[in-house]
């Protein structure tokens, strides 16, 4: 028995040392580790997962062509944040310890900031999948980049559209629970007032709140009747709100932003008829986005659920361009290259970081639900002078 034991141990040692050699060889200079601290479970999962799927597709394609900048094979390490801010910091630290040179963070400001506080001192470029709060990049520092159209840009686009439709009086429904739900409607209000509209009332909700009846009764009781309700509520609050609003016999149109451009909201059918929302792009026939959608369907086995997939894909392209420009995988050089990106041809249009506070300038598509389908209204880049300060 002892001899057999020794034999086994020898075999084990050989296996372990073999594994070590293998690890060393894969961690060669030509490999770059991208850490993705993203939500696979919890409330952010419906946003992070599609975005991550797009990023994976881009990285797979790039790896087939030699990797980022044609020479750094990407190893994507993914860890679940469970949609929890503290957990995001924990897994971000694990990814940094594993050697991540680029960090990808969830679709929300708070967890992205918690991860950014760890990457900032190390100079590791950090990109949020689709976090769109314009305060996000300033709260962290020069390594933090947004990728999706910022909340104030989206809100300006929706406000411009509402004004062009002749809307005069808006009711703002916010929730202090996240930066997105708290600020986006207020940005809308600022632009709307500047362009001659009036904010006739404000209401709040708690995320996950079961009952909107009291708030809806307040809306019905307003002396100055609004002709529009603007909110950044998303799932599951948005369906609850609109179900109860329409159930109470209120027919005032409701507008929102990108977070309600999802299959769940679309599946509400007639209930959401007339709801206007935003997207990062619209797949017109013959457009690059249409080609992407077809390629993604082939890659993933299902069509993209939203524009988060293409946004994730574009993150891959941005990183590729940045590494190409920098000519190295040094995090600081890559960061500088991203920050100086100008008129980069993405899939949805031109993306520019140069001259911004690292929230990109890019087009916003306005969409409207009609009979269970999202119909394109228009695509615009709001006038920078109109966009309210974060």
């Amino acid at each position: 028995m002892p001899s057999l034991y020794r034999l086994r141990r020898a075999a084990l040692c050989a296996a372990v040392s073999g594994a070590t050699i293998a690890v060393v060889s894969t961690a060669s200079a030509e490999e770059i580790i991208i850490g993705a601290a993203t939500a696979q479970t919890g409330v952010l999962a419906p946003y992070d997962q599609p975005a991550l799927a797009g990023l994976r597709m881009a990285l797979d394609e790039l790896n087939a062509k030699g990797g980022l900048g044609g020479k750094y094979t990407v190893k994507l390490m993914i860890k679940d944040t469970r949609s929890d801010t503290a957990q995001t910091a924990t897994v971000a630290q694990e990814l940094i310890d594993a050697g991540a040179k680029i960090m990808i963070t969830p679709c929300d400001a708070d967890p992205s900031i918690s991860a950014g506080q760890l990457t900032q001192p190390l100079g590791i470029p950090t990109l949020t999948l689709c976090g769109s709060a314009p305060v996000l990049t300033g709260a962290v520092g020069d390594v933090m980049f947004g990728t999706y159209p910022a909340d104030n840009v989206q809100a300006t686009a929706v406000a411009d559209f509402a004004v062009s439709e002749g809307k005069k009086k808006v009711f703002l429904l916010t929730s202090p629970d996240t930066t997105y739900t708290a600020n986006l409607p207020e940005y809308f209000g600022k632009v709307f007032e500047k362009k001659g509209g009036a904010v006739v009332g404000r209401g709040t909700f708690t995320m996950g709140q079961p009952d909107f009846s009291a708030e809806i009764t307040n809306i019905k009781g307003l002396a100055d009747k609004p002709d529009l309700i603007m909110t950044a509520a998303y799932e599951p609050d948005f369906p609850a709100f609109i179900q109860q609003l329409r159930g109470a016999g209120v027919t005032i149109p409701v507008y929102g932003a990108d977070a309600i451009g999802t299959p769940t909201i679309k599946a509400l059918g007639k209930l959401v008829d007339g709801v206007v929302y935003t997207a990062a792009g619209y797949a017109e026939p013959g457009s690059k986005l249409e080609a992407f959608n077809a390629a993604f369907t082939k890659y993933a086995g299902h069509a993209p659920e939203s524009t988060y997939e293409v946004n994730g894909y574009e993150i891959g392209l941005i990183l590729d361009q940045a590494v190409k420009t920098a000519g190295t995988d040094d995090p600081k050089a890559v960061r500088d290259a991203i920050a100086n990106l100008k008129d980069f041809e993405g899939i949805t249009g031109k993306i520019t970081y140069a001259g911004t506070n690292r929230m990109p300038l890019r087009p916003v598509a306005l969409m409207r639900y009609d009979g269970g389908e999202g119909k394109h209204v228009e695509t615009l880049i709001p006038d920078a002078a109109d966009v309210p300060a974060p």
Partner: protein
Amino acid sequence: MVAQQIINAVSLGGVYALLALGLAIVFSIVGLINFAHGELMTLSGYALLASLVLGLPFPVAVLVAVTCGALAAVAMERIAFRPMRGASVTSLLLTSFAVSSLLKVVFQNGISARPQAVAMPGWMTGAFSFGDFTIGVGPSISIVVSALALIALEVFLRRSVTGTAMRAAAEDFDVVRLMGIPASRIIATAFLLSGLLAGLAAMLWVAQRASVDPLMGFTPVLKAFIAAVVGGLGSLPGAVAGGFLLGIIEVLLQATLPATIAPYRDAIVLSGVIAVLLLRPQGLIPAVRVQRS
């Protein structure tokens, strides 16, 4: 306006009462706060969705969903809680948390992390007018269903042998067993009733929210727990009173607080709960045999 808000409050209070009652029934018999009660609701919600997707007519789908909730509760008892019978209150509590977490992950990974829209029939988003105020069909159904369920439960507990045995078990389980009534039957019935209540509450909850998601059970079970504690843990009339009180306070605050203070609503509600418990540590209507979890 005032009449409208009263209807809102009663409607929400009714749902909370159903939920709290589901927790209280199990607690009164086995001394367990079942934190997986919310997942029974989630399960019923998915059962409703599946039935509708399969093309079942709406009333049949509701029936299937509520039955699923009840059966799942019995299965939960059989699989998770029966092996723990006689264990300490802490072990039972931890078991219920474990069941809850497990089910959430199963829902997220097995179905989808994304909320699924449930298309409620068009008439449920309708409203009818009485003079100068309108009542939504949804809230009216909530009120009627809650009232009927509370009455039916009361009749069952007062008039049937099992019901009487359950009331007796809540006072002194050992004596009931000495009378020759099988403990397993009493406990299984308690879980069955709590599952039925969870299923009903889930239907009202989903009707108001138009979607089901893996985490939807968290808020209701929390509200139910608060309502049950305020009412008096283990006391069935207390759970109902606690549920209505919680619903009324929430709607009242939402209706009257100015927008700047409204975000503190939950903090104010919970402060109120502490105040009630300071004045009446055993709850509004204490249980006959007071237990602490």
